[in-house]
C-alpha cells in the first residue's frame, strides 16, 4: 500500500465526516486558499459528503489564475520575437491575455514549449544556444525557490541565453488584503499545504489574531482536508481562532529556511497586480538588481502595460469568494475550459475549471449548496 492510500481510505475519512457533521452547530463559510485544495475537494467528491451548512469557497491560490493580463501580454510579446523560445508550465498556455494566449501565439508560429520545471527550461537554453529561452516565472512560494535555484545555476554555468519574466507572488500579503475586505465573510481559512511547507505555519498567526479567523494548515489528501475542516469547525465552535497545523508530516512551524533564503537571494518583494484583486503592496517577487541580466522584460525591451480585464468576466469576485462560478453570466456558455474568457477557467486548479470538470456545465450541485446558506 502506498503512503497516500491511507489518506484516501473510507475507514479513515468516514469517521472524520461523521465528526464534522456532529460538530457543526451553525453554518460556516470556509475558504480553501490553494488551487490544489480546490482540485482535491472536487476530485474526491468531498463536498458531496459534507453537510449542506458548510460552504467551501475557493480563494486566490491558483497561480495561473491570479497572473494578470498585463503579464500574459508580456509573455506573448516575448513569444512573438523570432529568436525567443518560451518554455512554460503547461497550464499557462491557454490563459487569455488582451489579445490571444501563448497557445494562439504558438499556432501563429511562435515557439512555445511545455516544461515541467524551470530547470528544464535552463536545459533547453543549454541545448539551443542560438535561441533565447524565456521562462514565465509565475507561482507562489512553492515555485519561487526552484526558480531562484535555476537562476543561480544559470549564473554559475555562465548561461547567457536564459531569461525569466518575474511574475511570482507571495501568499500572506494577498490573504491580508483579502481579509481586510469587509465584504468577505469567512469563518476560517484552509491554509495551503505546499506554500506552508516553505513559509511555516506561524506565518498565519498574525491573520488569525488580527481577524479572529480560524486557520488550519492542511495537506491535499481527502483525510488531510477533512482533518483541516474539522479543526476549523472546532475553532469556530470554541470561539478561539488560532493556527492548527494538520499537515505536520510536511509543514513545520518555521517552514523551510533554506528555500526562503534562496528566494530572498534572487528576488525582492514588490507591489504586484493580481488578476481580479488589483495591486497588492509587497505581494510580488521581482529580480534583484544583481540578477537583472536574467530579466526578460528589460533584456528584450518589453514594456509591462496595463491591460483590460475581459468584458463581463467575474473572476475577481470568484477569487474573492464572493461569487460561485455557476453564478457568473459567462460560465459554461461564453467561458468554457476550451475557450476560457477568464483565468479561473483555464488552469486545472482554477475554481471555474474545477466546477466545470467535476460538476458539469451548469455546476448544479454546488449552486444548490450555496443557495441554501
Amino acid at each position, binding site marked *: 500500500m*502506498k503512503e497516500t492510500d491511507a489518506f*484516501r*481510505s*473510507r475507514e479513515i*475519512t*468516514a469517521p472524520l465526516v461523521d465528526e464534522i457533521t456532529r460538530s457543526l452547530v451553525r453554518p460556516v463559510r470556509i475558504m480553501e486558499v490553494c488551487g*490544489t485544495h480546490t482540485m482535491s475537494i*472536487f*476530485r*474526491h*467528491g*468531498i*463536498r*458531496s*459528503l459534507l453537510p449542506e451548512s458548510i460552504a467551501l469557497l475557493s480563494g486566490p491560490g491558483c*497561480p*495561473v489564475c491570479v497572473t494578470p493580463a498585463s503579464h500574459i501580454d508580456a509573455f506573448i510579446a516575448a513569444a512573438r520575437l523570432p529568436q525567443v523560445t518560451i518554455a512554460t*508550465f*503547461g*497550464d*499557462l*498556455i*491557454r490563459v487569455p491575455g488582451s489579445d490571444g494566449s501563448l497557445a494562439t501565439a504558438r499556432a501563429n508560429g511562435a515557439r512555445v514549449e*511545455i516544461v*515541467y520545471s524551470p530547470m*528544464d527550461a535552463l536545459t533547453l537554453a543549454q541545448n539551443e544556444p542560438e535561441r533565447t529561452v524565456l521562462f514565465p516565472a*509565475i*507561482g507562489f512560494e*512553492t*515555485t519561487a525557490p526552484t526558480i531562484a535555484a535555476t537562476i543561480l545555476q544559470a549564473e554559475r554555468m555562465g548561461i547567457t541565453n536564459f531569461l525569466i519574466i518575474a511574475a511570482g507572488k507571495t501568499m500572506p500579503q494577498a490573504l491580508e488584503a483579502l481579509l481586510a475586505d469587509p465584504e468577505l465573510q469567512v469563518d476560517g481559512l484552509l491554509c495551503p499545504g*505546499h506554500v506552508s511547507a516553505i513559509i511555516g505555519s506561524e506565518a498565519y498567526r498574525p491573520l488569525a489574531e488580527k481577524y479572529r479567523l480560524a486557520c488550519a494548515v492542511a495537506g491535499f489528501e*481527502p483525510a488531510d482536508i477533512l482533518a483541516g475542516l474539522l479543526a476549523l469547525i472546532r475553532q469556530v465552535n470554541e470561539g478561539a481562532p488560532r493556527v492548527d497545523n494538520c499537515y505536520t508530516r510536511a509543514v513545520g512551524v518555521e517552514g523551510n529556511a533554506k528555500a526562503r533564503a534562496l528566494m530572498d537571494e534572487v528576488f525582492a518583494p514588490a507591489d504586484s497586480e493580481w488578476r481580479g484583486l488589483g495591486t497588492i503592496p509587497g505581494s510580488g517577487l521581482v529580480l534583484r538588481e544583481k540578477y537583472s541580466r536574467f530579466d526578460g522584460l528589460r533584456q528584450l525591451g518589453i514594456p509591462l502595460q496595463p491591460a483590460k480585464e475581459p468584458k463581463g468576466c467575474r473572476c475577481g469576485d470568484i477569487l474573492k469568494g464572493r461569487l460561485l462560478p455557476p453564478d457568473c453570466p459567462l460560465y459554461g456558455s461564453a467561458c*468554457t*475550459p*476550451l475557450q476560457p474568457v477568464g483565468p479561473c477557467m483555464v*488552469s*486545472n*486548479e482554477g475554481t471555474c475549471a474545477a466546477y*466545470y*470538470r*467535476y*460538476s*458539469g*456545465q451548469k455546476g448544479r*450541485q454546488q449552486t444548490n449548496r450555496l443557495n441554501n446558506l
Partner: protein
Amino acid sequence: MKADSIVSLDHGSGGLASQNLISGLFLKYLTCPQLRDLEDCAVLGEYAGRIAFSTDSYVVDPLFFPGGDIGELAVHGTINDLAMRGARPIALSLALIIEEGFPLADLERVIASVARCCEAAGVAVVTGDTKVVPRGKADRLFVNTTGIGIASHRIEISGKRARVGDAVLISGTLADHGITIMSCQAGIAIGGDIASDTQPLHRLVAALLEEEDGAVHVLRDPTRGGLATTLCEIARSSKVGITIEEELLPIRPAVNTACELIGLDPLYLANEGKCLIICDQARAEAVLQLLRRMPEGREAALIGRVVENREGRVSLTTRIGGSRLLEPLTGQPLPRIC
C-alpha cells in the same frame, strides 16, 4: 548522417529511388502477395457479411516509446477500431508521410514492427503509399492505416445500445499508453512497469461475441480522451447515465504516481489496447471470466453500471464515498504548474 542512411526527397519521387525503397525495405518485411504485385490497388476476395471500414492517422511523439512504436500503434489502432463494431479485420493499407532526412534505420524499425504486428494479428498490409516532404514540412514520420473488416449480419454493437441496468467492464488497466507518452515528453524517467498497452483486441472481441453474442451491447476502445470521455460519448448516444466506482478501476500504482507527479487525471489519458464493454447485467460475471481467460484481458474488471438519466450524465463514486461528475475532455490535457 550519410546520404545513403537517410530518407531523401528522391525516395518519394516515384522513380528509381522510390522503387528501391519499396523493394529493398518495405517488401523485405511486408510479404503479402497482393502488395508485392505493386498494382494500383488491392482486390480483395469474397466475404460473407457486412463490410466494416475504418481509418486512423498516427503522429505520436516520440516515435519509439516503452512498450511499442508508431508502427505497432498504427496496426493495432485500426484493427481495434474495426473490432469495436464486432468486425473481423481482413486487410490493412499503410500510408507513410516521411520528413526528408529521416533515418532509414528508424524507418526499417517501424516497418519491421508493422510486419511483426500484422503477422501476430493475422492481418496483412495489402496496399500502401509513401510520400517524402521537405525538411520541416512534417515531423519525422506520420503513418496512416485504413482497415477493412467483416462483421456478421447478426452482430449489432454500437455506442447507442447501452441500456439501464447494464454492467460496465474494462478489459484491463487504464492510462498506461497516455502516461507513457506524457512521461517521455516530460523527460521523466518512469518505472520499469509503465509501458504502452498497445495490443490488438480483435481476438478478445471475437471470443466475446462467440460466447456472449446477444449480451454485449457496446464495445469501445477508450483511446484519446480516455475512459471518462468514452463513457460520456456512450452515455449521450444511448441517452442513459453511467456510474463507475473509483475503487474498482484497475490502474497500476506506478501510473497513478506518475499522473500525480505531472498533474494529470488517469481517467482522461489514452489507452491503446483496452476495450470498454457494456453488457447485460445477468451476463456480467460470465463476460468478466471470459475476458480474464484471454491474455489481452487478464486484468479485466467490472467497474460500474448503466443507470437512468436522459441527459447522459456520467458520475464517479470516489474511494471515500463522494461523488463527482465526469465531463468529456476539453482540449489537450495540460500538466499543471505545481
